[in-house]
């Protein structure tokens, strides 16, 4: 991305360059400060936070808050730590991401390469699920999940996330496939290749970048979701809801150091995914939004 941006960048002299560095450092401090505060306070005894300075390095380093946040902190009424909820989130995220990406790829393929009457209407309706306020579906969804026997379960959450993720994944794949030469698909049809063969042999091999985007986007969205988790989570709540319960539980003193450690635990998976595959995310965001 830098190769292109260099041409459009403003050329600068030395004095302005120094100024730019100064401003950049200020921005960086502003955006990194919370990370520092979370990290530093998660390895302190509680007394150092409430009594002293939030910014100071710990005078006594300890991993105890992390251990407690993970395995013994009070979540709501149970002293289970965040561990079971972390596993809930994993069991929810992995299938939900996989299913919504596969369905999105198929939809995108059909909507661009098998044009039919009303295909734009179908697409436009699907976009609706990216935009609507979820409050409008909460009550009926709760009823449906109850009837399916999925209320308060991980499969129920998977279903909800797949449904509301398809809009986004379809948008990504549709925009990506739109720039793929349709002549190649036509040629394959003439040669007698069927629906799946074309998808499998022609489109899938070039879908790598957009699949990565879809996976990252869905992963962050679903992992970070709070509304569906708190509404439909029941006894299998995801990490975000558990973190909220950990922090809000009103019994005894607020153990801020444990809260900080828990917050990092909740943020870690998306941060890792981003650090590992973030490059694709930017690349794909451009591909996805070029026609959007």
């Amino acid at each position, binding site marked *: 991305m830098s190769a292109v941006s260099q041409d459009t960048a403003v050329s600068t002299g030395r004095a302005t360059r120094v100024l730019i560095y100064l401003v950049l450092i200020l921005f960086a401090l502003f955006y990194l400060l919370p990370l520092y505060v979370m990290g530093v306070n998660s390895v302190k005894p509680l007394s150092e936070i409430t009594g002293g300075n939030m910014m100071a390095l710990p005078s006594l380093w300890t991993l105890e808050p992390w251990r407690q946040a993970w395995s013994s902190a009070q979540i709501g009424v149970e002293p289970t730590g965040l561990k079971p909820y972390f596993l809930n989130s994993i069991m929810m995220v992995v299938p939900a991401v996989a299913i919504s990406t596969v369905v999105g790829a198929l939809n995108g393929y059909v909507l661009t390469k098998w*044009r039919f009457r009303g295909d734009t209407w179908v697409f*436009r*309706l699907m976009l609706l699920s990216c935009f609507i306020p979820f409050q409008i579906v909460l009550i009926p969804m709760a009823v449906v999940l109850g009837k399916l026997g999925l209320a308060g379960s991980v499969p129920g959450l998977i279903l909800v996330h797949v449904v509301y993720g398809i809009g986004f994944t379809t948008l990504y794949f549709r925009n990506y496939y739109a720039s793929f030469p349709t002549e190649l698909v036509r040629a394959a049809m003439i040669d007698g290749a069927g629906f799946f063969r074309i998808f499998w042999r022609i489109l899938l091999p070039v879908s790598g970048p957009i699949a990565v985007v879809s996976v990252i986007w869905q992963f962050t969205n679903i992992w970070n979701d709070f*509304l569906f988790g708190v509404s439909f989570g029941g006894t299998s709540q995801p990490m975000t809801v558990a973190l909220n319960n950990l922090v809000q539980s009103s019994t005894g003193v607020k153990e801020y150091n444990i809260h900080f450690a828990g917050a990092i635990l909740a943020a870690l998976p998306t*941060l890792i995914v981003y650090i590992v595959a973030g490059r694709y995310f930017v690349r794909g965001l451009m591909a996805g939004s070029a026609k959007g």
Partner: protein
Amino acid sequence: MSAYWKANQRRLAPWLFLAPGLIMFAVYVIAPIFQSMWISFYDWDGLGEAKWIGTANYAELAGDPNMVTSFKNNIIWLALYMLSVPAGLLIAIFLNQTVRGIRLYKSLFFFPFVISQVVVGLIFSWFYAPGFGLLYKVIEFFTGTGVAILADPDLVTYGIIAAGLWPQIAYVMILYLTGLNNVAPDQVEAARLDGAKGWRMLWYVILPQLRPATFIAVVVTVIGALRSFDLVSIMTSGGPFGSSRVLSYYMYETALSEYGYRMGYGAAIAVVLFGIMMVFISGFIWKMWRDETER
């Protein structure tokens, strides 16, 4: 059967393969919208018999002071959230430089964007926390007395919005940065040869080319502002005294929280929120459609 399939394969296949997505979509997205509208005409506790009460829920909404607060807060959210568009643009233009390490630097800004709003909300709660919070201490240092922002009915909504703007500005900035990469270098060069510089260059050459990025930025910002549920729920649970409620939170509170049992009333709030959003959504989708047919 197989002969019919062979003859019509090309016509039927798209529908067949779209079917899983479409059916799910119809059952779980479209139908619930109408069901919510339907429920909003009932008095229902979620378990017992639902009783038809016509527009009574809406009549009650009109005179509900909590509704007025929520609605007012939603407007404040929307207005202040829009600041993230120019702010994100400015930062993006500023970051679009060729100094050393800028790539690593840009990726720093993704950090608030990828973490959960729950964590963002907590970070800001700690930042505002009376006694040891950083902002509290700073205010105390300058004025002598600290301000507990999240406990002050007049300030609380602004405090929460500030938390929301932090990732939102980053999001908009990322959109503009990718947009800036697509700005045609030859046009910039041509304008430069014609003597365009600084603001004129930005206004007449760069900005028109950033229009797609601006569009997406506005869409995600409006939706983000109207969907604001997580932060309110985590930072204040609508308090103090319900002064930081927004429509999305009020709906959840009346229908689904531990105190909520009024499904019909909650559904009516959801319908109002949906109506507001539909005004924006139809505008967006109409614009997307128009742009696509123009090409």
